[in-house]
């Protein structure tokens, strides 16, 4: 009989296909796991609503659960329960090591242009906070582009949402 712990452990092998260094568990998108009579119900929230990785992650989670010999039911929950604050400390460190600056903590209010232009954003390569915003948008919905003035390295900064 499959246990919830086994399911959580298996989901640690499911990576975000757009950022293969981080698992869906570290990303904080798995909200709940429930096992009942060999059926595994997983509640899963998208990061960004238009994220093309959504279906891939959903299918990969179902595969992992089938490999445990259980019947998966992966439900996509479209509520407001995910924010970048749900990324685990381990996940943040994995992002940084791969050259993605982890998101800054979320404030009480939505981010403002002036904050993106003048707040301290740390370069994931050299640690300098002397970085500037190049583009609010980047290669995927979840990232902005910044440039480090100290080591002159462009880098991808996770948006805080």
């Amino acid at each position, binding site marked *: 009989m499959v246990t919830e712990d086994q399911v959580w452990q298996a989901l640690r092998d499911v990576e975000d296909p757009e950022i293969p260094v981080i698992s869906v568990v570290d990303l904080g998108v798995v909200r709940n796991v429930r096992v009942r009579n060999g059926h595994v119900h997983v509640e899963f929230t998208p990061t*960004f*609503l*238009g*994220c*093309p990785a959504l279906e891939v992650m959903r299918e990969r989670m179902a595969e992992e659960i089938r490999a445990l010999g259980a019947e998966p039911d992966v439900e996509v929950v*479209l*509520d*407001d329960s*995910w*924010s970048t604050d749900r990324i685990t400390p381990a996940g943040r460190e994995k992002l940084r090591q791969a050259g993605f600056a982890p998101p800054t903590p979320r404030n009480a209010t*939505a*981010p*403002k*242009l002036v904050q*993106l232009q003048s707040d301290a954003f740390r370069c994931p390569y050299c640690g300098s906070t002397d970085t500037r915003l*190049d*583009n*609010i*948008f*980047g*290669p*995927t*919905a979840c990232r902005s*582009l910044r440039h480090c003035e100290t080591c002159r390295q462009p880098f991808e900064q996770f*948006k805080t*949402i």
Partner: protein
Amino acid sequence: MTERARALLEYADDELILGWRDSEWTGVAPFLEEDVAFSSISQNEVGHARALYEIAARELGTTADELAFDRKPDEYRSAPLVEFRRMDWAATIARHVLYEAADEIRVEALKDSGDEEVAGLAAKMDREEAYHRIHAQMWEERLRGEPRFQAALDELWPAAVAVLPEELRPELAARTGRDLPSNSLLLAHERGSHAEEWPALWEEMTEVRRSVPGAAW
């Protein structure tokens, strides 16, 4: 159709069609950063449309794809503002600035609504929309002194007002410092009427599903 389904379809149609229009800048925006920005904004808007269609589809006993691609042209509830095809940067930014201002008011109202499912989705959408608003603000500041941009704002203003239901319009006028247009000026821009570019856009959007009914991708 219930009031709820109708409101969801209006919102979903706006986001799908604006996403489509914004994606027309992919590859041909004035510079690379804006290719990336408009492509990313489009992707978000289409993602919002899908989520809104899914809620509406459950109520109407259909699917998001059927709502997005299998309706007749006059069944779409989009505001004409999002249908215009203006491959002109000043007009594109003017629409972006006005749409985001109207959309902020709409999404705030939904977040406060008693409909838990819709309010939750609206709050999630709003996290992403915050970055669209920042982008619009950045361009508004950059183009503020440009006569072409100001002319485009004036021209598109009545269509922007018509994005919102009547009770939310005074708030948009207050936030943008503009006067509400007369009813006769608004008439051509109200939902139910469509921009002259709409039939061609509908042909393009629905071409695959009309050629291969039920196609998924």
